[in-house]
């Protein structure tokens, strides 16, 4: 496919790896924030190709994984309300909550529909005027504007049975929280690609300025990721951290202003609770006053009970970059993609799922 195949060029990738090996003088620790990057890095074996001096940690960039059980439990409870159709991206269905999952709720009779787009959820609202359509609004800055756009569309068409349960999360505030905690020491961050297509590269400036950490925004093909690593090493070597874009075909420094405008029109920031990280100020999005009639928080009341965490699951630590999937005693034994214990084993962007899928079990355990 155009804009993908060229960036998978094996020969060029090999030469770039050579260059990185040659360049890498001292030990550095980099974090790929985004779960999509974690998958690409494991899928193309990039971790093994890098010199031993370059350590790559995975970050919390998996929207499904960082969803707190309390929010997931609420979504499951909402799906059980009479007259409700709950529309969700497919990724969420198999995530185990405290007591159940959306998939179990669906098997037990809840009307839960998998949608590919907020447009599909809106279509459900048009086609089912006597039902309440609740869309599970999950995702980072790449997804939130699409859901904001669907709300504006619903408003324009006077659709009054469309609601959004907004558990969106924002990336720069959680990066700040991770760095502030001081729990992981990093030299560089591979910044998310499609989130940055919306927000641009400017919101990461504080990472370089305040924390002295190198930043490079990356795409998802091998050459994109290798280029970002090359940029990070050069920044670290020169002692001049900044924010570079290794994904210029998809990301401009200022981002997509129209999408930012739509997102800002419908949503305002609020505190949000992240799995494993806790409450992070300004890291969530809730509907603004003017759009409250689309807000499930205002229209429905559910009490799913106190949230519980799965015993032995280390997802929270893995999301903070302080543990590896291989540190979890349940990995590959009790917890598999078929029988997931935690969200990191289910989501297409989860670290445990990536290790399980792309590395042999032994390799993952000996990491």
């Amino acid at each position: 496919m155009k804009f993908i195949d060229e960036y998978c060029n094996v020969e060029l990738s090999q030469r770039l790896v050579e260059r990185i090996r040659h360049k890498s003088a001292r030990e550095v620790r980099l974090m790929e924030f985004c779960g999509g990057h974690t998958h690409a890095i494991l899928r193309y074996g990039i971790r093994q190709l890098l010199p031993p001096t370059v350590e790559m940690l995975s970050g919390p960039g998996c929207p499904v994984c960082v969803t707190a059980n309390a929010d997931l439990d609420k979504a499951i409870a909402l799906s059980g309300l009479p007259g409700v159709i709950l529309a969700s991206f497919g990724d969420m269905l198999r995530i185990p909550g405290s007591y159940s999952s959306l998939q179990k709720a669906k098997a037990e009779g809840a009307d839960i529909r998998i949608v590919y787009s907020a447009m599909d959820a809106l279509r459900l609202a048009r086609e089912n005027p006597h039902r309440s359509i609740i869309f599970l609004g999950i995702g980072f800055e790449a997804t939130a504007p699409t859901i904001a756009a669907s709300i504006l569309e619903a408003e324009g068409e006077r659709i009054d049975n469309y609601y959004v349960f907004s558990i969106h999360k924002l990336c720069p505030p959680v990066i700040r929280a991770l760095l502030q905690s001081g729990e992981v020491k990093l030299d560089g961050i591979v910044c998310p690609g499609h989130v940055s297509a919306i927000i641009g590269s400017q919101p990461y400036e504080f990472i370089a300025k305040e924390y002295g950490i190198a930043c490079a925004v990356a795409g998802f093909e091998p050459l994109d990721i290798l280029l970002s690593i090359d940029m990070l090493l050069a920044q670290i070597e020169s002692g001049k951290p900044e924010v570079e874009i290794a994904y210029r075909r998809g990301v401009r420094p200022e981002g997509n202003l129209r999408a930012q405008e739509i997102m800002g029109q419908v949503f305002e920031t609020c505190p949000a609770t992240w799995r494993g990280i806790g409450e992070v100020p300004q890291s969530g999005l809730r509907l603004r006053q003017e759009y409250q009639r689309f807000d499930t928080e205002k229209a429905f009341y559910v009490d799913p009970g106190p949230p519980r965490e799965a015993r032995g699951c280390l997802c929270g630590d893995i999301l903070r970059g302080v543990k590896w999937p291989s540190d979890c005693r349940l990995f590959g034994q009790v917890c598999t993609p078929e029988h997931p214990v935690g969200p990191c084993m289910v989501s297409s962007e989860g670290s445990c799922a990536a290790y399980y899928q792309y590395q042999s079990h032994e390799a993952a355990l000996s990491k």
Partner: protein
Amino acid sequence: MCLAIPAKVLSIEGYQAEAEIAGVTRQISLRLTPEVKVGDWVLLHTGYAINVIDEDAAKETLKLLEEMCEVY
């Protein structure tokens, strides 16, 4: 979840467009990228074009990569 793929816009009607994704034609929304023209490539995420792909930048990056790797 945050995946986006390149799609080529074939026709536009208001905020709706037809786009080709790996040989398949689909309806997409241009609400977030109203500047899109027929023939443009966009990054498609959950049915919405979230950005126009900058073809010049794409070529420049490839050229940069070639140059960087010349001596290796």
